[in-house]
């Protein structure tokens, strides 16, 4: 509770006590009308002075059609009609409602702020062998920092000493800790769990992941959703309409029937009922809660408009490498075609032959062999001879090993027909030992396993087209697309052609929004051009965070499904509030005008509906989307 809220709560309690006292006194004793009036009027002034003051202020500023004005007129009118207890009650309940609103707003603000509280307080800087606690801002690139277990990683850097696990939940929503070893990158904002880490800083605090994320979250909701804009506009038109209707309700029937006090009383009720607070507060609160729920799940949304747009996505356009695939080359298949050389031997021989190469494919084979237990790849390797564009030859433990593509094989008179076909995703490395074909190792950038499952779920949620844009070759693109369940493939695109292709897609999918999902590496222009740009694995790339509207911190495609669910939940809550609030108000307005509902019902229609809508909005913060499994 803030100071102001405490003060207001005390005022409400005192006023409530005063009100009860005034009611009791006037019920028990026969007191003169003037005394009764003074009694209630004092309580009234005490509880409503700020509303009255604001109303006067607004009238002076010539922009007075807001809830203060409605309440001031309604309660003043009730006073004038001699309905003192009603007048006080209206104000008292209005204040209770306002207090509750402000409290709920502050609570949810705090909840979400806590969710995103990833700011590190200090860094342990190592200087001349001594450790000093400093502000992360003071650390410069190249400094060495020490991170103890339980501490938050203050700056981005590379581990130079120590093994540990990192809790990345605050950043990615992923609850499984990530193992970390020397040579690997650490990202600020994660929590070091088990071991002491020595880290060489690679980014100053201002450019560190944690600063960028905080900046992004704090400036979110800059772009307001259409629902919010609608509500603002609605309130602008609505309040004057209600005021004029109330005036009409007070005058026209009275002129006909001559019952002025009845109709003025009904007009005042009308004003109380009509207060638009419930809508005006609950809709932005729903969206804010939605953004909070998203960030809890490792999804950063840069504005509530994107949360709304996401629910209307009919076309999803994907980048291939790093988005649909893992983005790293790995040995995916080993085929032995010669009984004398089994798959393990094949891998070892090939890895040894390629051990002097720095080609990415060679490195991935070497890595696979090391993982399988190869310890000293360079031992026993002689006469390495690179054959440009074909592969290489080397003598390994006395055997001549040739590894390369089909051109190398035909050089060794190994025909095309003996070579096994691969899966089509990647590159096939054929191996011949002493001139005899031995087998094949396939190195591929594998499609993510969950792609198909996620897309099937998204299809059920209303996404109609899945399209892939890639600079890669047609065959690889087709293979990945069929495994992932992509409908349309546009291959061999240069980065600038991707934008053109997206323009065409935008042109052809006018009904519904188009989202582009990429990793932010050389596709920033496409991210910007799409209705919604979604960057995956945003932790690594600055460009992605800059260009995208939504950032999935993790590089799992399931994040898309989560984001979709959160977006739909948020919208449904926002609509529930709009329909509920407007529905109840219209109903009560009609009942009030007909004289069926009294002032108490009017107060419920105002405060009660507000409170219910706020409670409904807050629900979204605790919303947990279904995960893909």
């Amino acid at each position, binding site marked *: 509770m803030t100071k102001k809220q405490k003060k207001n709560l005390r005022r409400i309690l005192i006023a409530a006590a005063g009100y009860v006292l005034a009611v009791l006194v006037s019920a028990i004793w026969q007191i003169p009308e003037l005394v009764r009036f003074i009694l209630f009027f004092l309580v009234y002034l005490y509880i409503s002075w700020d509303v009255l003051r604001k109303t006067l202020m*607004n009238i002076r*500023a010539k*922009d007075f059609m807001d809830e203060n004005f409605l309440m001031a007129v309604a309660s003043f009118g009730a006073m004038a009609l001699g309905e003192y207890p009603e007048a006080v009650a209206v104000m008292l309940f209005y204040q209770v409602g306002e207090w509750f609103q402000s409290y709920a707003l502050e609570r949810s*603000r705090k909840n979400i702020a806590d969710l995103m509280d990833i700011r590190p307080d200090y860094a342990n800087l190592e200087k001349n062998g001594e450790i000093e606690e400093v502000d992360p801002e003071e650390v410069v690139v190249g400094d060495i920092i020490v991170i103890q277990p339980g501490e938050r990683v203050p700056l981005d850097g590379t581990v130079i000493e120590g093994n540990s696990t990192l809790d990345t939940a605050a950043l990615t929503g992923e609850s499984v800790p990530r193992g970390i070893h020397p040579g690997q990158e650490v990202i600020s904002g994660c929590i070091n769990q088990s071991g002491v880490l020595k880290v060489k800083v690679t980014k100053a605090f201002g450019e560190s992941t944690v600063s960028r994320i905080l900046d992004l979250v704090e400036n979110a*909701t800059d772009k*307001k959703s259409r629902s919010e804009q609608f509500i*603002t506009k609605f309130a602008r038109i609505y309040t004057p309409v209600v005021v004029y209707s109330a005036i009409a309700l007070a005058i026209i029937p009275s002129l006909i029937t001559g019952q002025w006090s009845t109709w003025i009383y009904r007009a005042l009720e009308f004003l109380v009922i009509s207060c638009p607070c419930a809508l005006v*507060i609950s809709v*932005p609160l729903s969206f804010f809660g939605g953004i909070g729920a998203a960030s809890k799940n490792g999804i950063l949304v840069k504005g509530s408009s994107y949360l709304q747009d996401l629910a209307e996505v009919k076309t999803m356009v994907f980048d291939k490498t790093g988005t649909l695939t893992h983005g790293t080359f790995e040995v995916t298949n080993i085929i032995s075609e010669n009984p004398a050389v089994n798959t393990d031997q094949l891998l070892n021989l090939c890895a040894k032959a390629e051990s002097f190469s720095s080609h990415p494919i060679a490195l991935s084979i070497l890595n696979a062999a090391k993982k399988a237990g190869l310890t000293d790849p360079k031992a026993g390797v002689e006469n390495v001879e690179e054959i440009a564009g074909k592969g290489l030859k080397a003598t390994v433990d006395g055997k001549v090993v040739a590894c390369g593509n089909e051109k190398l094989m035909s050089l060794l008179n190994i025909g095309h027909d003996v070579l096994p076909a691969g899966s089509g995703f990647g590159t096939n490395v054929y191996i011949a030992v002493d001139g005899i074909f031995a087998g094949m190792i396939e190195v591929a950038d594998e499609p993510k396993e969950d792609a198909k499952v996620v897309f099937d779920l998204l299809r059920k949620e209303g996404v109609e087209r899945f399209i892939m844009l890639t600079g890669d070759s047609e065959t690889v693109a087709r293979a990945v697309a069929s495994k992932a369940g992509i409908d349309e493939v546009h291959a061999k695109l240069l980065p600038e052609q991707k934008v053109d292709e997206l323009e065409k897609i935008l042109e052809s999918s006018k009904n519904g929004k188009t989202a582009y999902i990429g990793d932010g590496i050389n596709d920033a222009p496409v991210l910007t051009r799409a209705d919604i740009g979604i960057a995956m694995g945003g932790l690594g790339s600055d460009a992605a965070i800059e260009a995208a509207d939504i950032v999935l911190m993790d590089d799992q495609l399931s994040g898309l499904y989560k984001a979709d669910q959160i977006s739909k939940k948020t919208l449904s809550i926002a609509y529930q509030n709009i329909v509920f609030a407007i529905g109840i108000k219209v109903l009560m307005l009609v009942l009030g005008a007909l004289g069926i509902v009294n002032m108490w019902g009017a107060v419920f229609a105002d405060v009660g509906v507000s409170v219910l809508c706020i409670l409904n909005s807050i629900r979204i913060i605790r919303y947990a989307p279904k995960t893909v499994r």
Partner: protein
Amino acid sequence: MRKTFKVEVDCPTCAAKLEDCVSKINGVDSCSVNLMTQKLIVNAEAGRHAEIIDMAIEQMKKIDDDVVIYA
């Protein structure tokens, strides 16, 4: 240039009023008030922000003096 200022606004109506007031100040291209993060984001010519905020503080006193703007 875009600059962000901390504000204290408790209700959507006050936020709308602040937004209205600031966006009408000469030199402001656009502005938005974020009720949830309590931020006022002003897009204006570089170097003019201080002046704009001073004007906003002055004008808000007349419109709604519950709104606090931290320059």
